[in-house]
């Protein structure tokens, strides 16, 4: 009986107050839920998602087909076929530029290796596709891979 009288049943009261306060806060808009298909979590700068090839101000791909990214890639997911450049300011341009996103580990090494800042990782992360081939991105797809 002494244990019952001296034990901490009164300590329940702060718990009840806490849950009630939490409830009132939630009702007035303080919830943590993101209504997923409509809303998305805002990703921070530097999130590594799908790749994108940048274009310069004339609309040409910045890539000079130096194969640095292909060499740096630890997952061997980049395949570049170079061809001669039609423009005088560079020697080579990529004829085809394929990234196998199913092999990619999104480490961002290609972005670091690129000497002319041509490849970057965007925050795009919705990776569902019906066929495996759909996740092998080619040059045109990578050039226009914007949000």
């Amino acid at each position, binding site marked *: 009986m002494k244990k019952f009288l001296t034990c901490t049943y009164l300590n*329940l009261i702060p718990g009840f107050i*806490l*849950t009630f306060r939490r*409830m009132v*806060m*939630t*009702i007035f808009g303080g919830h943590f839920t993101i209504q997923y298909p409509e809303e998305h979590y805002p990703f921070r700068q530097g999130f590594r998602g799908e790749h994108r090839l940048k274009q310069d101000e004339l609309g040409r791909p910045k890539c000079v087909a130096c194969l640095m990214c292909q060499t740096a890639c630890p997952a061997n997911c980049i395949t570049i076929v170079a061809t001669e450049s039609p423009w005088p300011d560079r020697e080579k341009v990529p004829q085809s530029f394929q990234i196998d996103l199913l092999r990619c580990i999104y480490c961002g090494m290609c972005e670091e290796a690129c000497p002319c800042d041509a490849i970057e990782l965007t925050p795009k992360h919705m990776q569902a596709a019906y066929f495996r081939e759909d996740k092998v991105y080619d040059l045109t797809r990578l050039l226009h891979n914007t949000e």
Partner: protein
Amino acid sequence: MNIVLELVKVLFAFVLVMGIVPLLIWLERKISAWIQGRVGPNRVGPFGLLQPLADVVKLLFKEDIVPTNADKGMYFFAPLLAMVAPVILFAFIPFGPDIVLADYTFKLQVCDFGVSILFFMAVLSTAVFAVAFGGWASNNKYSLLGGIRAASQLVSYELILSGSFLYILLKWNTLSFRELIEKQAAYGWTIVSDFPFSLLFFILFFIAALAENKRAPFDLPEAEPELVGGYHTEYSSMKFAMFFMGEYIAITVMCFCMSVMFLGGYHFPGVVDVSGNFLNALLGLAVILAKVFILIFIYMWIRWTLPRFRYDILMRLSWHYLLPLTVILILVKALI
């Protein structure tokens, strides 16, 4: 004519108690969500109000599995009893003041007789059989353990409930719910008119009612981490839904009973008089529903705040502390 009116009343009472159930399921999910900082169901209908309907449709289309070695008769009987017993309980609850229609007094209570509290207690204790039968007939060790737990828990907490009913009998000298409300209307609600005792008995009754309805923190018969699903592990489809609905009906009826016994039922000072017109009855119904929903909110608030008891602590709480306290309080009250 009178029989038709009475039948309409019975139907109304049934629809009332069955209509509260989906609302409670929705409210439970919403309150749990709010307490945990979530939003809760909000896709089906406005504010997710049609979510219980979607759940029922889902359950109706589920496969109804009967275990091979189950005791078929009892296996089918248990969910039936789990749902029917609380619905019968509602017959004894007055849910509004009388309506006087010309020469006929129309009572807003399905079944009004002098000893309704005794009948209420008697039907209340059949709730044990539903869970015990369900647990035993499933022929599953978890169900059986859940059933045993439920049986011993309900039996031990029923004594506290009976003690509180005894207190009401001592205090108001009546065994009829309707008379109880009339006396409370005349002399003040139980909870305020007899202060230290009534509040203590209200708390005791509330704790025992939580245990009786198998609600957290007393939900050991269906403790998921220990017993898979407790006594309804083997039940699926509509049979499970009947257990589920029965539980919520029992909660509703318990809250109705508490509001009648301690909080003055449909009486609220200045709102409901004895004039017997239709508007007055509607107001009375609104008053008692408001009280019931406040109590149900407290039920849910407790459920989403407290963790589950350990089984020996649950038993010790009942037999070592609450039951002696009830007995002592009744003795003191009887002596005064």
